[in-house]
């Protein structure tokens, strides 16, 4: 069963408008552009089946974003394919500094210029914690909105955020040196 032409048109506009933003969020969740697009596609296929109802809520963007992070967590649980941000590098290789990262640490830290380092740190977080960090600090959702999107309590969001920040800071400090992330 398909959508009416008008609903299908609404869906098309939604996809065309939000695709790139969703892919960016997905990229931070999975660490790979291709897999990010796959994730967004997977979610939108599901969304299409219920588009009429989702659109009627008036907040389809929030719904799809929540579906995206939850699908990401679900996929991570299945772990059918290991996340390979760095193309199957060994853990020791992943732990090494990337090329061009021999500048003064303080310069390197400023603005977290090296996205690879940040992505590595992000992907080392457990999926749910990573989702919390992405929703809070990339999507700029409030704690309450993050809790709603992930189906968890505000208290859990707070604790996941706190632990996520702690682990990110530890990882980045270990990789980049002391004093850069102040």
């Amino acid at each position: 069963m398909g959508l009416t032409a008008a609903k299908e048109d609404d869906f098309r506009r939604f996809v065309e408008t939000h695709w790139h933003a969703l892919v960016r969020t997905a990229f931070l969740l999975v660490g790979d552009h291709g897999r990010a697009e796959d994730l967004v596609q997977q979610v939108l296929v599901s969304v299409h089946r219920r588009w009429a109802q989702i659109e009627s809520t008036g907040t389809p963007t929030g719904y799809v974003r929540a579906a995206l992070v939850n699908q990401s967590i679900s996929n991570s649980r299945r772990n059918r394919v290991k996340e390979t941000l760095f193309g199957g590098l060994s853990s020791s290789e992943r732990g090494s500094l990337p090329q061009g990262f021999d500048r003064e640490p303080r310069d390197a830290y400023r603005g977290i210029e090296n996205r690879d380092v940040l992505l590595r740190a992000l992907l080392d977080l457990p999926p749910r914690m990573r989702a919390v960090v992405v929703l809070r600090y990339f999507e700029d959702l409030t704690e309450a909105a993050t809790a709603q999107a992930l189906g968890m309590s505000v208290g859990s969001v707070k604790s996941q955020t706190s632990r996520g920040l702690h682990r990110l800071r530890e990882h980045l400090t270990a990789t980049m040196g002391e004093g850069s992330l102040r």
Partner: protein
Amino acid sequence: VNDPFEDTLREGLRDASTDLPEGGDPYARVTTAITADRRRRRALGAGGAALALAAAVAIGGAVQRGMASAELTPAGQAPEPTSTPTGTFEVGLGSLVSIASCIDRLVGSPPGCPPELEATGLANFEAAVAATTGTTPDSIEAEVAFNQPLPASVLPTGETGHVVIYQASLPSGKHVRATDASLSTPAGGAGLSPYLYEVVSPVAPLLIIPGEVGADGSPILVAPDAATLSVAAPENRHLALIGEAPDPVLDLRDTGEGVWSVQWLPPPQTNVRSALSLATFTVTGTDGIKHTFTGAELLDLEPIPPPS
């Protein structure tokens, strides 16, 4: 008071994803996936395994015989191309690569048919025959039976299907037929960019039926007899099956570690005498779109000599 680290993190997250390429037609991509999803659901709803096998047989038996035909004996000796180049690229790895390469050689397509792969493909077939019949074939013949765009009813994304039929002659005078298939997309042509596939998952699909997978992406296909199931080396993931009823459905799950787990489901049909090689693989086009296919090799064994 904001922690400076949080501000830095915000900035870093935005920077990290800011350069992702835009472009393409996401709606077209999504609608293609929606179509595939509907097909999959329909197939599963109507007995996906049976449909997959039926479609496999339909493709394997479909017309266009004689586009290129040659006898490949002894194994590994390639014939001269007997038809014009098709300008297509094979997909797949393992047996599929070798067989697709062999197809390319047969139809004379551009370079990309390493002799060793071709020999490997024939050797794989020979080994499959030996494993399933217990005898070494006297000779092997190969024929390109199908080499044209697949109808939209089979595959809506416009790929070209290739089917090659192998036939082995056994010392007993019996013959073993194997129908193998691959997909490719047009290379070149007006308005089309070469569409090379990068194989992501090294598996050996031989008959490609897209979308016919379980809810978790596992292939679901028909297998003739659980009792005689044997699983060859994981690298080519070949299942050799000989027998008759009860004709269970084989639910084959890739555990992600190169190990297949097998589960038998209620049989959708009976009286199948064949062997299957099954796999799922994902390919990425140069347009960045990934496609997941289910593959099955159907070995028609008739009559079946007893294993020695």
